[in-house]
């Protein structure tokens, strides 16, 4: 009897502990007994990206960026209303699948997260954004570039890098003016991202007087592109653009070379990664691609890639600096709002003017980042080399490193 009483007490205590552990921003204990350390304000930030499946390497990169931000902010100790912020990152896997994307979004809403960083793919970000919007939870995507995401009129949907309208325009104009292409073949992977970007490139190229000689399609889990490439070879285009991810672009570049298709190969941010070069091998030479953001060496915080490497023992793939900044932007808005309550700090988010790792982040009325930069790269000697940066915030900040950049390049060689 006595013993069972003890047990039930312990259980009750454990249950109480557990509840307070998962409760949303546990209300401050009215009488803080432990006075010595400042009381903690526990919040949860959800992160969603594909952690399994064929672009898991990019998903892990995004999550690592967010994790680094959370760890550094926790270590630094952000104070909100006299309470020390204790951020917990809840990393979810959406498998790059729109259906799974909405399921994990609902899961995060049910877990009462204070904010969401993600998702990675436009195809998952767009359907999930409705769920976050209905729940009033701010969502910042570090990598979903499809314009539709912020055009739906959701106050909660924002992104910290340029979108595909900007990116498509840069690629299209590059093909016309710099490559002098008269005919272009376009391939996409039938995802919201790939298709959206390919459409924007097509628009920009047509506007420049280019003839689209073939519009072909593949899938985001394919490895054999010889059939469509052979068809394209028959049309003799000057350039081929692929809207999709590195996992397809790599083998595609190789197969182009094997088939003797000599057109210039171009792609967007999804294929603009070190992984692409690894997969394409020597077929990667002379490949042009864009990233919706600044090159690492021109970012405001140049130690980011070192910190990242030290913590995760791997290279920055592409968007981890942006997921890092997305977390920081959320926390910054909380600081200014003096609250971690989504309903309160969401009013501060649009007023953001935050100097992050990637540069100064400000949002326009849709939730797109202002002055989003697009960087054009060319692969030479197995490296992504910056060709030009279009747009970008704070010209002064962008000018200064520009002078250093050639030196840095020279040092590399």
């Amino acid at each position, binding site marked *: 009897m006595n013993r069972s009483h003890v047990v039930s007490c312990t259980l009750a205590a454990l249950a109480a502990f557990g509840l307070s552990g998962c409760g949303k921003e546990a209300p401050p204990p009215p009488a803080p007994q432990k006075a010595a350390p400042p009381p903690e304000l526990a919040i949860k930030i959800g992160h969603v990206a594909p952690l399994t499946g064929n672009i*898991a390497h990019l998903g892990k990169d995004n999550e690592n960026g967010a994790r680094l931000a959370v760890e550094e902010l926790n270590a630094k100790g952000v104070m909100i209303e006299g309470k020390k912020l204790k951020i917990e990152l809840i990393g979810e896997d959406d498998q790059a699948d729109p259906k799974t994307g909405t399921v994990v979004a609902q899961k995060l809403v049910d877990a009462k997260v204070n904010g969401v960083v993600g998702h990675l793919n436009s195809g998952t970000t767009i359907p999930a954004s409705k769920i976050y919007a209905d729940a009033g939870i701010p969502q910042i995507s570090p990598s979903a570039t499809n314009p539709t995401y912020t055009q739906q009129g959701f106050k909660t949907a924002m992104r910290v890098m340029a979108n595909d309208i900007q990116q498509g325009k840069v690629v299209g104009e590059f093909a016309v003016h710099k490559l002098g292409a008269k005919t272009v073949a376009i391939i996409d992977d039938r995802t919201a991202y790939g298709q959206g970007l390919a459409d924007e490139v097509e628009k920009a190229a047509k506007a420049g007087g280019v003839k689209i000689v073939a519009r*072909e*399609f593949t899938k985001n889990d394919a*490895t054999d592109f*010889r059939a469509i490439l*052979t*068809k394209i070879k*028959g049309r003799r285009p000057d350039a081929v653009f692929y809207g999709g991810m590195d996992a397809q672009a*790599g083998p595609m570049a190789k197969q182009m070379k094997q088939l003797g298709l000599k057109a210039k190969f171009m792609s967007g941010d999804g294929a603009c990664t070190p992984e692409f070069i690894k997969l394409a091998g020597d077929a990667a030479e002379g490949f042009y691609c864009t990233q919706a953001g600044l090159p690492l060496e021109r970012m405001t915080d140049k130690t980011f890639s070192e910190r990242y490497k030290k913590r995760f023992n791997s290279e920055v793939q592409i968007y981890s600096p942006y997921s890092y900044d997305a977390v920081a932007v959320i926390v910054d808005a909380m600081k200014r709002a003096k609250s971690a309550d989504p309903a309160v700090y969401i009013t501060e988010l649009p007023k953001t003017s935050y100097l992050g790792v990637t540069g100064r982040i400000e949002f326009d009325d849709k939730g797109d980042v202002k002055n989003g930069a697009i960087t054009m790269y060319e692969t030479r000697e197995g490296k992504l080399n910056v060709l030009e940066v279009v747009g970008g915030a704070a010209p002064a900040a962008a000018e200064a490193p520009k002078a250093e950049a050639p030196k840095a390049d020279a040092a590399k060689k």
Partner: protein
Amino acid sequence: MSAVDFEILLQQILNGLVLGSVYALVALGYTMVYGVLGLINFAHGEVVMIGALSTLSAARLLQSVLPGLPGPIVLLLSTLAAIPVCMALGYTIERVAYRPLRFAPRLAPLITAIGVSILLQNIAMVVWGRSYHSFPAYVSTEPFQVFGATMTPVQVVIIVVAMAIMAGLMFLVHRTKLGRAMRATAENQSVAGLMGVNINAIISITFVIGSALAAVAGVMVAANYSIAHYYMGFVLGLKAFTAAVLGGIGNLGGAVAGGLLLGLIESLGAGYIGDLTGGFMGSNYQDVFAFFVLIMVLVFRPSGLMGERVAERA
């Protein structure tokens, strides 16, 4: 038809044959297990993947020990190292996941097969990581010209290996004592058991042989696309399964015929649907076309192109 058009057509046919041989290599493993056990071993695609990745690991090890070894020999030796790994894996899968369910309702082993597939994928993700591994060109992937179309030595090897394995398996099943025992087991397990056939041993051997083939298939696929990844087996497995059904599952010749047919349909489909329909359909209809052919074949020949047994198994 101009010379260029002819070159493109020839190239598309070659593309289809190579793709089809890749499907056929994997489909042979599916069909063999199905032929003996009536079980669709959905984990087969994952064994293919493990074969490719263990070959890659073995090759890296081998090159660090003996740096000067020529590529094809490295590939051969590391494939020989990966085969026992896959054989052991195949044996374990059968022993742990399928044997206890041999007399359970048909759905149960199918579900465990899917479970094993997901399990292996995730184990491989932990062991080899999420990144793509570029598979070094141990056999040259430099193209050569065939009447204006291009082919690579790897592709020739793939077609030859697919045909050789099919011939080898046919010999094994139809001309050896082991093959007779396999066929007897396929016919009726209990009767074969009463006649002195060691059913468990035969089924284990079937799995072990199927897994050895999977290792070879994995190496071929990885070498052809110069890429290996923990996820590579999944889509490949589905396509190969389709090829096996198309050709008549359980029939070795059918697996190769189905694989080649599927490869050709996909390749020619992607290449010519757009022009044939005046741009109304494009290469996005590639799979629609391939699976439409599958449906038509199954409607008119439910046991597949070369399948004989109907409704007796499934």
